[in-house]
């Protein structure tokens, strides 16, 4: 009965009322969910909503959507479960390649690769969606929970990401981004904004990851030079999971217990966050460390502003086994780990002639947070102590960045 019901609806929506403004299609879990849901995702028309009733749907292959202006809506992230534990093909659970797509109220579980990947979308709105690997943190988990790339107008709101072996919420090579009201736990990186322009990351909880929030930029990619990222009103606390990323990936270098990392971006404002319980370091601002011949790439962070944050305990359990950051910091600080660390690395000309005023790191009031950076000239001359702990040297006026607005949201 059930299958016939579905087919009638599909046929009806296709053949008869194709040109009406909006249409709702409903699906329920069945033994043939793979074919039913994929067919619905192909036959859906712009303006339509596909409703996924409560229950668990099992898939052996990835799903994909390539129709603009549609909504896929479940009965809630704990009610409608798309389960990929038996996936035999497809590099992700759900792939979206169209524009103005709303994903709402469902969960993608145990995908073999990434959970939800979105490529080249102009407008992707993911609301109250969960991605989870249910077996806990494991290197055999997929890389990303939420993975919009080369997209613009990206909204991730009220979402939950658990167990990704790279980043729970990862936005790469995209523009105009809001990640808010979301929770990232037990991932290697909780939330990562990479090679992206104009992002607001706020009201999120990033805890029990290896690292909470990363703002990264990498060379040799079509879009690079990440800039204008605001990270505010987040709880970045107790990131205490051992790094379980497969080697080779940049997050594999990140030590357990890192709160926020800003790397090779410009115009980043970190404010009004609660950052604490991170055993290696609460906030670190670093240069891209590997060699590159990419002449268009700037490995240095610049115009970074940090103010109004509440720092809790940090650096009490540095992860000296993973990557180099914790070990270097531990050695430099003589075990007296700071809340905020900047590696102090500058282009050679700036070491000699100084950094332009508007590119300097600016620290506002961050309570009694401690700071540490390296004087690069002294670092090169072993007779001097290169460590600079004077917070006041970096105090300055804050120039707030603009709010990100997504049209129609």
């Amino acid at each position, binding site marked *: 009965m059930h299958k016939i019901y579905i087919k009638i609806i599909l046929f009806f929506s296709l053949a008869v009322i194709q040109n009406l403004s909006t249409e709702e299609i409903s699906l329920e879990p069945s033994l043939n969910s793979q074919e039913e849901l994929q067919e619905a995702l192909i036959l859906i028309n712009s303006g339509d909503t596909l409703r996924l009733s409560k229950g668990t749907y099992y898939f052996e292959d990835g799903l994909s959507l390539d129709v603009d202006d549609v909504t896929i809506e479940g009965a809630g992230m704990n009610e409608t479960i798309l389960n990929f534990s038996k996936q035999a093909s497809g590099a992700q659970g759900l792939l979206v390649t169209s524009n103005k797509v709303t994903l709402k109220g469902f969960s993608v579980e145990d995908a073999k690769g990434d959970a939800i990947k979105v490529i080249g979308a102009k407008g992707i709105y993911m609301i109250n969606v969960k991605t989870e690997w249910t077996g806990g943190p494991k290197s055999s988990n997929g890389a*990303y929970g939420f993975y919009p*790339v080369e997209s613009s107008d990206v909204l991730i709101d009220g979402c939950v990401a658990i167990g990704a072996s790279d980043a729970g919420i990862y936005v790469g090579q995209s523009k105009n981004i809001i990640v808010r009201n979301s929770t990232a736990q037990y991932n290697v990186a909780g939330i990562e904004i990479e090679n992206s322009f104009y992002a607001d990351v706020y009201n999120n909880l990033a805890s029990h990851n290896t690292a909470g929030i990363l703002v990264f930029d990498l060379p040799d990619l079509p879009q690079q030079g990440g800039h204008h990222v605001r990270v505010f009103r987040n709880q970045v606390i107790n990131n205490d999971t051992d790094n379980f990323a497969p080697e080779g990936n940049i997050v594999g270098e990140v030590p357990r217990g890192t709160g926020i990392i800003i790397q090779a971006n410009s115009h980043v404002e970190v404010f009004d966050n609660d950052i604490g319980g991170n055993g290696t370091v609460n906030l670190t601002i670093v240069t891209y460390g590997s060699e590159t011949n990419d002449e268009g790439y700037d490995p240095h962070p610049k115009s970074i502003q940090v103010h109004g944050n509440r720092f809790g305990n940090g650096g009490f359990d540095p992860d000296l086994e993973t990557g180099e950051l914790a070990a270097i910091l531990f050695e430099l600080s003589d075990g007296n780990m700071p809340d905020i660390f900047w590696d102090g690395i500058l282009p050679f000309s700036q070491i000699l002639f100084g950094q332009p005023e508007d590119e300097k790191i600016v620290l506002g009031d961050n309570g009694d947070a401690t700071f540490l950076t390296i004087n690069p000239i002294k670092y090169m001359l072993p007779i001097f102590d290169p460590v600079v702990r004077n917070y006041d040297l970096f105090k300055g006026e804050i120039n707030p960045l603009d709010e990100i607005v997504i049209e129609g949201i």
Partner: protein
Amino acid sequence: MLLIIFGVNSAFAVNDNVLLSEKFPRTLSEYGFFEDTKAQQPSEGVLPYELISTLFSDYSKKQRWVYVPEGSHATYQRDWVFNFPVGSALIKTFYYPLDERNPDAGMNMMETRVLLRKDSGWEAVSYAWNETQTEANIKIAGKTINTSWIDEFGDMQEVRYRIPNKNQCKECHAANDEITPIGPKARNLNSIYPFTDGPKNQLTKWIDEEFIKDYPSDLLKTTDWKNITASLDNRARSYLDINCGHCHSSTGAANSTGLYLNLSETRKKHLGIYKKPVATGRGSGDLQYSIVPGKPEESILLLRMLSTDPGVMMPESGRALTHTEAVELIKDWISSM
């Protein structure tokens, strides 16, 4: 309905109206590409062709045909597939010989994929053969078929064959977000084919049939990656071009990775040499670089060709088995660097 309204063409000709209609017909035979669909006997104006270097699809064999409507022509495009006129079609049947040692034993047809050049651009659709092998029916959402065949050594091989869904067609057949053919580049057709009226260079035949008017006289020929007399570098690059380059190019679906394996790429980092993974996750297999010259066992590229784990393997779709011969080729190529 369509047949009744438009079925006025001669019996053994392509039905241009069906080909161009907004909705895909439910069965393959409605197009009229074949005089005898079951026997895959092409109709008049439908020409078989063969590519010098082909995409691996789980050891399935492929028979290809091209159709260009009378009175119009495809035009040559440098470094790209021919620009086919509206109304053209590319037809490709995937099959397994029942026994590779004995061609007369017959074959098991899996699907026939069709690329249709409509007014708005190319559209892709696939038809799955029924069990009695008499007709192929449209499969919008794809299909999984567990099947087997006897290989050239007499061993039974099993495969979880996937007929791609409409979106998966686009995953490979897309450049700048438009659907496009991948194979029929002039250089990939520059070879002799045994036509029913005798062997002939395919491009010459296309001129005879007025499918094309001309092509450059100094045209290069794609290297057949199986041709062991060709240089290792040409063979490897040719294989990577046709198997990876449609996504891994600056206009392909995988351009965000920065790994570009199309034939015209020359920058070492973008070819993968000492290139770190970007968003690879466990696809990196704990290795540091796409290609480490001289060390295939440390190269992510080879690891992902070897794997059959959906979260690791490349290509992402269209393969469930490891292409052992190609793995050997790429291993030798990386070793020789």
